[in-house]
């Protein structure tokens, strides 16, 4: 599958670790991208963060404070990093029973959690928009 065949949705922000972020009223919604779900393969389990957990925006070096949980597929277990700093307000508990919706609907039904951001405007600048992320995927080959 070529890079252009992955869905990259307009209006979202993207991290280099293939998390997406959608700005909503006073909060952001977070998930993993179509590219990420395809590379992982069939998702069998999603480890969700605890509501109320404080997270830091992903940066280098990575540490546990930046983790939102993990997505486990039949092939691998991948950590989900937070594209934004803030407090976890809500988690998608449907994923506990139906983790496969990450594969079938990564941008809608398969969202992972909602975070109340601490420093939205500044941190958004460090993320990619749809165009930049599409370019980024192309360069990954």
């Amino acid at each position: 599958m070529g890079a252009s065949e992955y869905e990259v949705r307009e209006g979202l922000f993207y991290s280099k670790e293939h998390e997406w972020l959608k700005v909503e009223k006073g909060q952001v919604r977070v998930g993993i991208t179509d590219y990420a779900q395809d590379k992982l393969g069939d998702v069998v389990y999603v480890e969700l963060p605890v509501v109320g957990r404080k997270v830091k925006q992903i940066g280098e070096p990575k540490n546990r404070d930046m983790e939102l949980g993990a997505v486990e597929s039949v092939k691998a277990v991948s950590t989900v990093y937070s594209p934004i700093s803030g407090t976890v307000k809500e988690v998608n508990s449907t994923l506990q029973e139906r983790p496969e919706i990450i594969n079938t609907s990564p941008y809608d039904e398969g969202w992972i959690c909602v975070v109340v951001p601490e420093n939205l405007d500044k941190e958004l600048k460090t993320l990619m928009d749809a165009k930049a992320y599409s370019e980024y995927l192309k360069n990954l080959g």
Partner: protein
Amino acid sequence: MVHPYIPNSRETRDQMLREMGLSDVEELFKDIPPELRIKRGLDLPPAMPELAVVNHVKSVLSKNLPFTKMPSFLGGGVWPHYVPAHVRQIVKRAEFLTSYTPYQPETSQGMLQALFEFQSLVAELVGLEVANASMYDWATSLGEAALMSARVTGRSKFILPKIISKDRLSVLENYAAGPSLELVEVDYDRETGQVDLDQLARKVDDNTAGVYIENPSYLGFLETQVDEIAELAHSKGALFVVGVNPISLGLLRAPGDYGADIVIGEGQPLGNPVSFGGPTLGIFACRGEQRLLRQLPGRLIGMTKTVDGKDRGFCMVLQTREQHIRREKATSNICSNEALCAVAAAVYLATLGPRGLRELAEVCAANASYLMKQLSQIEGIKVPLFKSPHFNEFTMQCTRGSISWLNAELLKRGFHGGKPLRREFPELGEAALLCTTELHTKENLDGFVEAVRKVMEG
């Protein structure tokens, strides 16, 4: 001459030295500072032929007295029980005895099936849906249960009873130190030994990950308020963790039936001998909910079907919890298990069956009850210290002299007395923890009572 146990001839040795460019074996040790080397020969007796060695060792071992010659009343976490001959025979089979960890299911179906059956039997016994393939012992199971409670709930406080083996507590403290888990003790009623419910209610809060009790308690009595404790834990969203002696479940309610989310315990009494306190077998079971299952520590064996759907097969499952996949994010440092002890436990439980286990538990409890009654008639002996029903262990207080004196006198009369409790529970005065099992005959019990009476009457 080639040494019988070192099969390298002089020629082989010289050849190896030549390859290494050395002229003498001594040169291999030149990095060791001379002051650390012994400059004389070892002070050993002359070599003996094999038969002479066997005779010598036998004569040394004959100083050991078996249970039948010197009955022991020691329990406290490792309990003596009869191990049926065929349990020993089966675990001695080379397929079990020398098998490597079953990472390759295609070559390990026998061991995997035995461990799966162990898990199934443990799960049924404790009344929960899932059991792992075992931890090292009760203490490591407790440490893991505390950490698991914290992971499942995202909280950091673990509540436990004051009456607990202090060795077990010390392992729990080790586990709690790294992740900064707060351990909170709940006191007990001085009359009955029961957990102080009012104090527990005050201590359980929104940051409580788990509430732990032991039933039977470390000091042998039954915890009678299990339903209330389960209710208190669950009302604040904490997990309810119960520790057991599995033999007691032949008689007592399964913890899963009174609300336990995690059940742990010592599996040694299930077909494993008392051998200087080990090896032991940590039991670990939990409810079959995803949020618990995913945080379960240790190895888990599952049953599945072959690709063509025709045959049943066994393999390790949910390995993404474990160290060889998840490294530092694994649910536990324990990524092995007490495989052979678990096989012994499975054979043992399958042999006894529910009725056999019930009969066994009845005899253990009846012996304790008889011994308590007989000892309580002796002047200077208070038994038991707690007004509660007991299983197979109980406390005994000596009001005229110390337990160490009493035990020394009993030893002279051919009995191992109870475990002294002074170090663990100084508030109980001169007290000991005594244990009875099916191994104690009526003669053993009566003989012990008589010996105690003689010592006390001085």
